[in-house]
């Protein structure tokens, strides 16, 4: 629930993991299934004497994102060194854009707690390199030792910083879902890869200092951590304990946050311009990147409504994930676009969600086949749902499932036989109907359905029963 005194701002670290190489060296980004420290080179290990060289493609991707978030792209950008000691940082500084972020002043639209569209302002978008990954032997506060994996070190990261415009954990989650959606539309990001997105959340209650909950990698985790923080900060306030500015760690297993350091222990990062890199005039790159910018969720949604004549709610649901949108367009071109919208948005997505599966686990060809069987009246709606479920659970193809499960709609003759039998057997209901109780017909239709073991179309059965009653 939105509470007026809750103030949340996010810093989202997005790995540009669709790049082929890291931000400052030629190392491959495909380390996700690789053993530790196998995707490294002298540059990303920061060996003495090595120098960074900017991956131009990474900068193009970053501009793409900044444009999609309606940021103003800066004319010139520069990298800085952020100096601090940590074992996952082999140069003891992180190369990051600091005073010269790539993009300033953007926004994302989300659906707010009140159901209305809400604008979340983006303060800045800047690039930086990812540090390595520490693997603790045990929990962070109790580990006897830690190991470092530098495979991740030097991956291109984009930091997206919001204004404190979010008012609830749920809004924070909506923002993150929408951001992920946009990033996947831009083809710069695969949210399914480990560590693809890491979020620092700043949260405070009006009039209090803020806590920063660092480094959560799931949207659900952010929502939970923020909910915990609201409760914690509220109860502290009730007990008269003032919140101090601090950094906290979210313990996913225990579902709680623990303090790491307070403001007094804050670092002085001694930022200064990275002397091994030269300023980039990115203003000149913008027209090219703009020309290559793909259609974004909000405009796709509008186009679906206009081109396919579908409801806006359906369009919104279909465009909330690029893969679903592509699936829909594929199917819509080969069947009734409106029918496809209903079946994909209302049925298929629900079934996928229930199974925690993605759209990739369903074939658009199968969807086209199911819709055409429906349109031809070969299966009932109930049958179609059953086909979808079966395909998801056990595989196969639609025709085969219909055959195997006997889902083909009963032949008209069989229905007619059932109708005649039902009318004969349900004398009382027939009498009731004839004496003006129209609802009595439902009993007879129910009997027809029973006799056809549900394969009759209920509407069709209703019509036939009515016909039979009016005839005699």
């Amino acid at each position, binding site marked *: 629930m939105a509470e007026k005194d809750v103030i949340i701002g996010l810093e989202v670290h997005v790995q540009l993991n669709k790049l082929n190489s890291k931000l400052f060296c030629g190392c491959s980004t495909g380390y996700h299934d690789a053993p530790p420290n196998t995707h490294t080179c002298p540059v990303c290990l920061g060996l*003495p*004497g090595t120098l960074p060289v*900017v991956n131009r493609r990474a900068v193009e991707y970053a501009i793409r994102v900044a444009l999609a978030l309606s940021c103003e792209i800066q004319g010139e950008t520069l990298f800085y060194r952020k*100096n601090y*000691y940590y074992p996952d940082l082999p140069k*003891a500084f992180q190369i990051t854009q600091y005073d010269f972020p790539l993009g300033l002043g953007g926004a994302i639209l989300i659906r707010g707690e009140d159901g209305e569209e809400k604008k979340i302002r983006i303060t800045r978008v800047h690039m930086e390199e990812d540090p390595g990954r520490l693997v603790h032997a045990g929990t962070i506060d109790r580990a006897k030792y830690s190991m470092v994996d530098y495979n991740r070190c030097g991956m291109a990261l984009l930091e997206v910083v919001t204004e404190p415009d979010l008012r609830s954990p749920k809004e924070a989650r909506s923002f993150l879902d929408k951001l992920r959606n946009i990033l996947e539309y831009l083809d710069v990001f695969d949210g399914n890869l480990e560590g693809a997105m890491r979020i620092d959340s700043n949260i405070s209650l009006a009039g209090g200092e803020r806590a920063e909950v660092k480094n959560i990698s799931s949207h659900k985790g952010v929502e939970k951590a923020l909910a915990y923080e609201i409760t914690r900060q509220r109860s502290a306030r009730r007990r008269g304990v003032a919140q101090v500015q601090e950094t906290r760690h979210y313990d996913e297993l225990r579902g709680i946050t623990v303090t790491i350091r307070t403001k007094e222990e804050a670092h002085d990062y001694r*930022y200064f311009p990275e002397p*091994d*890199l030269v300023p980039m005039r990115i203003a000149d790159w913008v027209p090219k990147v703009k020309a290559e910018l793909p259609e974004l969720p909000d405009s796709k949604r509008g186009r679906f409504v206009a081109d396919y004549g579908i409801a806006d709610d359906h369009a919104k649901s279909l465009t909330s994930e690029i893969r679903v949108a592509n699936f829909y367009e594929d199917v819509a071109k080969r069947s009734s676009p409106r029918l496809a919208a209903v079946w994909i948005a209302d049925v298929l997505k629900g079934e996928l969600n229930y199974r925690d599966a993605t759209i990739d686990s369903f074939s658009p060809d199968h969807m086209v086949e199911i819709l055409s069987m429906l349109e031809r009246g070969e299966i009932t709606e109930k049958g179609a749902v059953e086909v979808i479920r079966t395909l998801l659970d056990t595989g196969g193809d639609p025709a085969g499932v219909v055959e195997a499960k006997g889902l083909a709609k009963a032949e008209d003759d069989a229905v007619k036989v059932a109708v005649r039998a039902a009318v004969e057997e349900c004398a009382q209901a027939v009498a009731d109907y004839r004496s003006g109780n129209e609802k009595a017909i439902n009993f007879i239709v129910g009997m027809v359905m029973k006799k056809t073991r549900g394969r009759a179309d209920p509407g069709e059965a209703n019509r036939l029963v009515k016909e039979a009653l009016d005839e005699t």
Partner: protein
Amino acid sequence: MIVMLRMLMEELATGASAEEMASALFEKIKKSRLNAYNILSEDSALERAREFDRSPWTGLMAGVPIAIKNSISTRGIETNCSSRILSGYIPPYDATVIERLKEEGAIIVGKTNMDEFAMGTSTETSRFGPTRNPWDTDRVPGGSSGGSAAAVAAGEAPCALGSDTGGSIRCPASFCGIVGLKPTYGLVSRYGLVSYANSLEQIGPLTLSVEDAALVMEVIAGHDSRDSTSVKSDVAYLSGLDDGVEGLVCGVPKEYFGEGVDPSVEKAVWDAISKLEELGASVKEVSLPSTKYALAAYYIIAMSEASSNLARFDGLRYGLRFGADQDWHTTFSDIRAAGFGPEVKRRILLGTYALSAGYYGRYYLKALKVRTLIKQDFERALAAGGADVLVTPTMPFPAFKIGERIEDPLSLYMADVFTVPINLAGVPAISVPCGFADGLPIGLQIIGRHFDEKTVFAAAKAYEDATSYHGAVPREVV
């Protein structure tokens, strides 16, 4: 007997054995008292020499032995910047300059002694102890590339690479009576040079003659995609070497003479200027008014960058490691406390201070502004219609005694007064021998326009051809 590169290559081409040549060199190095080398790569050098003898290859430096400053990464050969903290560190890759030397057939002799992490003017801050000046073994060879300079001067290597952040090639070249070039910033790839102050330093040659320096530059200079600050440039230096100085305008910056300059140095440099005039150059006085701020700006920038560059040495991945590990902070603090010498610690602390919140604007940013002024000084003096080159002393005095100044860092910093402005401006400068004071060599500094090494070489060569200082042989040659 001291041999120039061209003669050496002629001998090799006409059947002299590279192996015998290399063996003789190692023999000489091992007998030497100079302490010019930290590490010898004898086995691999002799192996290469034998290969060369079996089937000689071609290349600009085919079969030529070369000494490498201990801050330039060599694959498979320890590179420790004469620091304890990097002891045992063997790079898995070659610096770009090393790759290029190997491509042109050169043979690496070993790694030369230097001030720890290139922080010094005397090679006394090395963890391996000072290198001795072959002209007077009680004196320093200059620094920080003192090992490279002493080796070349004493015939323990026919040529060497050094690096120059604030004078570290030119100072020891001057003190040891040889030729040393600090190239234009961006001309030689820094990839593989262990950084001291990235925005200031360049790798360059230390040789016995201007021609040798030009030859080595043809090999090592040129754009490298691994160094974002490197620039495409024409590097055919050998072709214009004999262009002479006829019609050349030599600027003499008035701020580089007078107070603090040893009279014998001043006289030798004025004699050199007269010699250039005799050879057809014209001379005019110029002014570089921001010179007095150069030292302060230089040390702030260099130390700031160094404090960040040297932060990576924590013993975790390579280099010094001892005892049982404790927690992360204790472990890396202990390693750094034991691994760095006092001068390095001093510069890291000062640099850290200068970059700290609240001081950054007062020190680092201000130093950058001064740097711009100094660069403008040079651009003005060397503008079209002005001087083509500037001529100054390299060092204000000849080599001093070992131990004489090491306890007084400020007086050591002051010695760099004529070399650091060149690094701040990014222009090229060469030091060539121009005389002696009580048997100690004196260096003449010739400064050129950005990427105009060609004119610098031509002027230096004309002067060298007309004098005999570069042929002099020091006493301490085994």
